[in-house]
């Protein structure tokens, strides 16, 4: 069904107007820079097909670290108060050129940007706060651009032939997506399948198998067949597997437009009626309501830590081995911060142009310093997003959410 919305001058009789056609998302060439797919945390995908369940989204060849076993995460999931698809994903996004935006976006408004092979797109936070998932394509690749307002996280995923929807459930206050082909649950930050509607029994126990104070983390390599079973008792090999993900840049409209003047921008013609002028949680400019740094999460997180204010922003990265985070405000101030993930040196690098940051694996311990012209690695200077090091997928997150999922995370800044 082509659900579109019609805007027209007020008339006395309300009637439905069918709008034919769909947006032609042209591949505007804005630059050769890529800030999206090259930040992938995973390599070769294996598109699996569960027997009789349809086509899974592409899976990474390695699974990301988890704070607890998938069934325990399922037990920790709670209803957010909305039904399945009660927060409707955008399945037929429409875009317009930057020059057509007019006053719809203020310079300081938050947008989520992706770019690859010269194609750039911006997804206003004011729209995604009402939908949380946008099923789109970028340079021919089917993708899902996702945003969870309660954890302040924007992450991109490859979706293959399926689409993502919003389950209405949360874990650690984080959006749990589901794929419409198999209805597996995918917590956004964890990017890994957990048992969903077809899991045995209901979630029980208020403690939800929380990690201990030491914050031990478990690497989930294959999804144990003993604890990850479907209702009929058969092992579910998808549980514990991770999605292929890519970088979504959290920035402002002005910064994104300055860097990508030919960007396309998601319009409010989403096919749904929402008040896009109203963020039900608060405001980011300036931070207020739920987004205030010291404000409480909606649900108690899986684990707590008071080293930073609850909603302070960290730039976090996680691998099969563990998690690392950099305090964004400190990164903004210092430019480069060095840290360690599971004994391996990593470096966080701030990018003033977009007020974002990147995380690189620096296994050889090369000298990385900030200069007025860019970032110096050994003897050469590079743009912050193009260091000659292995870039690790990273994204902004509220501190409480990051620590709740990764209590053993190292954190710097």
């Amino acid at each position, binding site marked *: 069904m082509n659900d579109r919305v019609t805007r027209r001058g007020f008339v006395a009789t309300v009637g*439905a107007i*069918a709008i034919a056609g769909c947006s032609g998302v042209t591949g505007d060439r804005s630059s050769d820079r890529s800030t999206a797919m090259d930040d992938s945390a995973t390599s070769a995908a294996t598109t699996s097909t569960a027997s009789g369940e349809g086509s899974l989204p592409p899976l990474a060849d390695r699974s990301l670290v988890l704070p607890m076993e998938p069934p325990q995460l399922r037990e920790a999931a709670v209803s957010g*108060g909305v039904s399945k698809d009660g*927060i409707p994903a955008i399945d037929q996004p429409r875009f317009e050129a930057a020059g057509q935006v007019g006053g719809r976006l203020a310079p300081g408004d938050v947008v989520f940007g992706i770019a690859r092979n010269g194609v750039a797109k911006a997804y206003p936070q004011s729209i995604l706060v009402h939908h949380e998932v946008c099923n789109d394509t970028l340079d021919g690749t089917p993708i899902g651009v996702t945003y969870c307002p309660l954890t302040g996280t924007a992450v991109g995923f490859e979706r293959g032939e399926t689409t993502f929807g919003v389950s209405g459930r*949360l874990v650690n206050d984080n959006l749990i997506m589901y794929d419409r082909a198999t209805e597996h649950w995918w917590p956004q930050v964890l990017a890994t399948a957990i048992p969903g509607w077809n899991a045995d029994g209901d979630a029980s126990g208020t403690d939800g198998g929380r990690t201990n104070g030491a914050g031990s983390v478990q690497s989930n390599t294959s999804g144990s067949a003993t604890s990850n079973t479907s209702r009929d008792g058969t092992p579910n090999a998808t549980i514990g597997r991770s999605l292929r993900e890519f970088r979504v840049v959290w920035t402002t409209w002005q910064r994104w437009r300055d860097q990508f003047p030919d960007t396309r921008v998601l319009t409010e013609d989403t096919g*749904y*009626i929402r008040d896009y*002028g109203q963020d039900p*949680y608060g405001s980011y400019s300036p931070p207020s309501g739920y987004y205030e740094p010291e404000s409480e999460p909606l649900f108690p997180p899986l684990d707590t830590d008071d080293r930073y204010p609850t909603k302070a922003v960290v730039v976090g990265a996680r691998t099969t081995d563990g998690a690392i985070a950099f305090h964004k405000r400190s990164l903004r101030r210092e430019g480069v911060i060095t840290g360690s993930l599971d004994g391996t040196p990593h470096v966080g690098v701030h990018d003033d142009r977009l007020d974002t940051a990147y995380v690189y694996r620096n296994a050889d311990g090369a000298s990385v310093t900030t200069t007025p012209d860019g970032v110096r690695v050994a003897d050469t200077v590079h743009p912050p997003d193009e260091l000659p090091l292995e870039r690790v997928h990273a994204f902004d997150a509220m501190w409480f959410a990051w620590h709740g999922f990764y209590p053993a995370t190292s954190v710097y800044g």
Partner: protein
Amino acid sequence: MAESIRRTLRTLRIVASRWDARAILTLTGLAYLIGYSFAVGDLALTGRGGISLLVVDAPLDRAFQSTGYLSFEPIAAVEAGPLTYLFSPIDAGLALVLAALVGINVALTYLGLVQPRACGMESSVGLLAAVPALFSGAACCGPVVLIAIGVQATGAVIAGFQLLLPIAVGLLALSVVLVGRRIDPTLA
């Protein structure tokens, strides 16, 4: 109970026949409807000026798509000057029922006050039942009021919020009967 309902219905006919009671019912019902619409987010001061109408394609299909417990998708948005109103037929119907019950309660209270031999105090207490419904609106995730005041939720709290609307309707209806049966139709 049957006699109480019969007596209440007779009293409601009195409300309908008196201009002063009708006016009170209409004004208080309208005030509650506006307040409720603001509280649950259907009405907001986010208009961008001018007058416009947005309608979804296939509105009949969309109108029955659930977004949560007793909450359904809006099918149209009306902007008028500074106001934006999201119209969901089922949600609007529920709001009208609530507003009508509030208006009737207030109108019966008024009749009780102008009737020396009647006591309308129960309706004043019953009106408190209209308050929780104002907090029934859910944001994309979680009740708006909890987010606004920074109180953490639990599964039980979320479930409780889902019951606010039906509980409010039930209590308001009960209040109408309790008060309506005490008013002597022959004195109105």
